[in-house]
């Protein structure tokens, strides 16, 4: 069970966020659900690159190159993931303000007749 636990947790975070996105009546809540779904990818990426009894892929005098380390490619991908997530969230929140201005509501059910 321990061999798949982090993958199961990543899937669970993704599905929980998806459920929130489907059932929400508030666009700001929807943006946060999207952010929860994205967090699942951080867990998944870091879990795939993890290696037992290995350190971070950062070497020094005490930890010379060649010491067992986890996959740095996954760390780099996660960094990209976080940056893109944060900036897109800011943009989507600005769009939410625009929806509120056009329709007077942030309930996605009421904001369907948006135009222009």
């Amino acid at each position, binding site marked *: 069970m*321990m*061999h*798949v*636990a*982090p*993958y*199961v947790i990543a*899937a669970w975070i993704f*599905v929980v966020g*998806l*459920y929130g996105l*489907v*059932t929400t009546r508030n666009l700001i809540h929807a943006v946060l659900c999207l952010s929860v779904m994205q967090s699942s990818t951080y867990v998944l990426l870091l*879990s*795939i*690159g*993890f*290696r*037992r009894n*290995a350190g*971070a*892929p*950062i*070497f*020094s*005098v005490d930890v010379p*190159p*060649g010491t067992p*380390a*986890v*996959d*740095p*490619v*996954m*760390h*780099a991908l996660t*960094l*990209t993931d976080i*940056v*893109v997530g944060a*900036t*897109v969230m*800011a*943009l989507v*929140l*600005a*769009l939410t*303000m*625009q929806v509120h*201005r056009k329709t007077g509501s942030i309930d996605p059910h009421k904001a369907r007749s948006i135009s222009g």
Partner: protein
Amino acid sequence: MTDRVRFALFAAGIVPLGVFLVWAVAGLSPFGYYPGPYGDVVNAIATAQRHVLNVATAVNFDYRGFDTLGEEYILFTSVAGLILILRERRQTQGKRTSLGETERADGVGALSLVLLPVIVVFGMYMAVHGGLTPGGGFQGGAIIASGFLLAYLGSGHPAFHAIGKIEILEVFESLGAAAYVVIGLAALGLGLSFLQNFMPLGGRGNLVSGGTIWAINIAVMLEVATGLVIALSEFLKEIEP
């Protein structure tokens, strides 16, 4: 679409998704047993090839430098889109939702302004040490922007907009975004591939080491810090008293 139909669609979609997720997880190598080979190869060669000790930084700004260029421009475009939406909104609407200015103790305001330069210096420290320790341009830039947020929280709107002049920030943001591409093009000018590392690598473990990795980190720091402060500034103008 009623809530019932919506939920039925969700239920119909989630079952196959669950099946696919179980299938996918079953095919992954067990947690803690990374199969390789890419991570191992990069870990083995990066310090010798690029003279940086943080291999994740080497991947981000050198081996995968082209992807990070795209990442930086996602940030740049998001901030530009955010500015467009919010400014258009303010110009056509005129009236803003004002939350009023909160009363703050003088000491809190003074402390927030004293801490700002300290946080900015710490952010720069994080960015220039990107090749040696955990850190880099993205982290350093985010730390610098947090200093400006603290200045707003402690001192309010007038101080924030006086420190973070949007005209100056926009110039620095463009400089940061352009510097990354210029470094890439400079390699082309020398007859190398786009974004190939052409600067002197420096001694392994030295502050200035890693060649273009070091330079790109500073460009990214400039772009991230100013981009985030601009986004912050545009959102704060929405609730200005």
